[in-house]
């Protein structure tokens, strides 16, 4: 009897998923992106498959992260698989938040901020950093959510 990888997709759950950052960022004013974005870990060439409303971050010639609306991840995964791209729904594995300003980022990472998107250590945790003007979206493994929430809030406190 064949099984499937549905157990990786939080969007297929009937109850509402809970953000790993919910406690850490409660009443902080920092935007929690964890349940805004679905994350697909895709292996293969995505260039021939234009997708609307998604962001593709190439990590290597063969590997990309595809960021899409949280609920769309299972469908998009199927769509990609149908086109020969191996994709795993890794949405449950990542937490995300948004911070504003280079000042706080300088307290968190040695990544050159003028070269985003980038992957590197933010607060000593491997993080995908996307930049939109003065706003930075950070995606990292959800098991570090409490730590990263605390770390970001502490950095902001140091600048206050």
């Amino acid at each position: 009897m064949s099984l499937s990888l549905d157990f990786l997709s939080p969007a297929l759950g009937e109850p509402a998923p809970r953000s790993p950052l919910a406690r850490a960022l409660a009443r902080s004013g920092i935007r929690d992106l964890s349940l805004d974005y679905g994350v697909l870990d895709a292996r293969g060439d995505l260039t021939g498959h234009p997708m609307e409303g998604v962001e593709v971050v190439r990590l290597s010639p063969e590997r990309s992260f595809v960021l899409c609306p949280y609920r769309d991840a299972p469908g998009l995964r199927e769509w990609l698989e149908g086109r020969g791209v191996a994709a795993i729904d890794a949405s449950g594995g990542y937490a995300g938040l948004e911070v504003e300003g280079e000042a706080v980022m300088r307290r968190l990472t040695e990544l050159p901020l003028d070269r985003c998107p980038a992957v590197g250590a933010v607060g000593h945790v491997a993080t995908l950093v996307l930049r939109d003007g003065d706003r930075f979206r950070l995606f990292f493994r959800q098991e570090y959510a409490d730590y990263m929430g605390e770390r970001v809030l502490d950095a902001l406190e140091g600048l206050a």
Partner: protein
Amino acid sequence: MRLDPRPGERIDRSEPIRFTFEGKLVEGFAGDTIGSALYAGGRRVFSRSFKYHRPRGLLCCSGACPNCMMEVDGVPNVRVCVAPAHEGAVVKAQNVRGSLERDLMAATDKFGGPFTPVGFYYRTMIRPRAAWPLFEKFLRSAAGLGTIDKHARRTGRYDVEHRHADVLVIGGGSAGLEAARAAAASGEHVVVVDENAPRGDAPGGLELLAPATALGIYEGGLVPVAAGRILYKVRAKRIVVATGALEQPVIFPGNDLVGIVLPEAVRRLVHDFSIRPGEKAVVLAADDDALAIADDLRDAGTQVLEVVDLRNGPHRISASGTKGRLNGVGVEGVRYNCDLVVASGGRQPAYSLLAQAGATVAYDEGRGVFVPRDLPANVEAVGSVTGEGTGSIAPAKTLLGDKTFVCLCEDVTEKDVKRAIAEGFDSIELAKRYTTVTMGPCQGRLCHLASVRMYARETKQGEDAIGTTTARPPWSPVELGLLAGRPHEPGKRTSIHHRHKEAGATMMWTGSWRRPHSYGDPAAEARAVHESAGLIDVSTLGKLVVRGPEAAVFLERIYPNRFADLKPGRIRYAVLGTDGGRIMDDGTVARIDDETFYVTTTSTGAEGVIEWFEWWNAIWKLDLSIVDVTGAVAAVNLAGPQARELLGPLTDVDLAPDAFKYLDAKQGKVAGVPTLLLRIGFVGELGYELHFPSPHGETVWDALAATGATPFGLEPQRILRLEKMHVLIGQDTDSESNALEASMPWIVKFEKDEFVGKWALEHVQERGMRDRLVGFEMQNGSVPPEGGAVVRDGRLAGRVTSARFSEQLGRAIGLAWVPEELAVEDADITLRVSAGLERAKVRLRPFFDPEGERLRS
């Protein structure tokens, strides 16, 4: 004495500042340093020396020497000559018994000399050996710098900030600023670091970090910069070093007396703080800039008795004083009664950062200084650090008189250096370690050149042959708090972590994960698993999806057991071995479909297994992908005789024994959440391991806990797995263990053509078993320590790897490595328990449910 207001002074006389020194009120102005305010108030003795407790006063007034170190607001070793005065500061002397004026330990200077020559602690006080801790305690309390309060709590905050620049200029003097402006003019982003607070506005177009100190130059252009309570980590494409040159003391008897200063001290006292440095002065200098200090002194109202140009040949100089304070100096037999001697032996390029970066350093005979050569790529030097405009003079032959100090930080005298050479420490690197010259807070700024010269003279070699000591970071002392940064530790937490905390769990570290040790009563939790059902969070297990047309081939090659024949929906135990046949990790492999496998690893082994998989497939180039889904998937294990009954109402999966057998994998929903259900068990009871998306961790946990299942932690899990004799990789095995000797021969399929480590395991098979991992049962109930010895004929024969008392079995049990000949059911072994030996029986089959009937029920 404070002078009338002067143009360019740094102090703001409209803003008084008050602080205390040794409990007494001191008044200064905004812009003062603590040192300048104290000096203006008449204080001349600022510290006691490291070893002899001699009085010491301001020498450099620029943060280079050790003479003004005090405790400020509880922080020891603060150089008060550059530390800004601030309202309410509490300043204390350090390294004194009594007061700065009357230090009881000063007896060391008067009487201890013959008993405390250089390196005395290597020769004396070493016997009887048992008394050394006492001697050491005494020596450490008698000598040294400030005291750290071991119980102090973190005060204030220290931060780390990262900067990127095209050009980093270290040193904001004229040469540094010129280089910075030129780079900025060409459109480069320039950061300038300077040790002094800026006068006026920062130069246009430049980013200025000041007052700040570059601590070193590391690979990749990384320069840590200490700026108060912020450590900047600056990465620059190009580094320009403009650290200038350092005024060198003149070496003569009595050269450490209070009142002997470097010219820079006079410049700062007069121009920055409007203080008259002394009443009567003699100037001894070896360069024009230093000689010009006489004009500054006269301008400040000091009577200049004599100005001696040391370049006009060696001069015989000797200073004298009372109670450590200068009262006169003799030059070529002429005595001058004075309270101030401004002495400079010339200027030595401050090349240390360049040397750290990889530059070579050579002695320039013409100038009499060491200069940097062969700069590494992307590092430049400008200004006097290159040797431009510098030079120094050799010391005159020593006269009889007071002690002659080569190194003020460590109280190393000329006599000490000579003695070290006589004892055979004839290289400067050995001398550094034996005498500690250059190892003090000044890091050789004021003593390196002098000690090299002394070595050259005494060993009759050239300075170039003597060479320099290795320059290492930090170039300047740095507060430990600054290196420590913020107190954060990147710990991992499962998505159910907060539920454990709410339930009162005691948390523990397993690798980088936080996990529940227990919820208060490990024995009761273990009992619940045996009698009803227990619930444990196993989200920390490593989890991989191995997927692709050649996934089965890959697993077949990398594991010693078979996976090509594993049917979809079935699970198999997996032990991963190294190419040397050693056990690396273990877990399970479930086949999802023909091309997809779901692999679990130990909690601490996940990263290593992923690397191992990727490394091998980089060689094999099989058509597959390896995706780490450890964090994406939460997992809980529901185990116990009632597990089926409790789980049933929550899931759409048929849990009937015939429909869902042991080692089956099924998919369905649990509490509405898509779940992969694995029928496996580590704790010896009927069990279901549920894998589902992490964001639903609390939902599933809450639903299962509501059925009445008892949460249990790692400690009861360890008792339960021991009852089943299940091996814990890393606990019961080490880097030398192999699957055959770890009593898992059934996992190794030698009939396979190839697998990683096959040749090594064949070798073990051929040579025969030497040791074996076996179970043991204590005969008297005591629990041996993990790591404790298995003893045979009075000699070490093996070791205990795990041991616990099992309430279920009513006895102490464990696992141990024993010689092969003892790996026999019922064999007697002897274990060390506390100070004595205890007997145990070897067991080769699980202690609990040996046939696995409960597990398969």
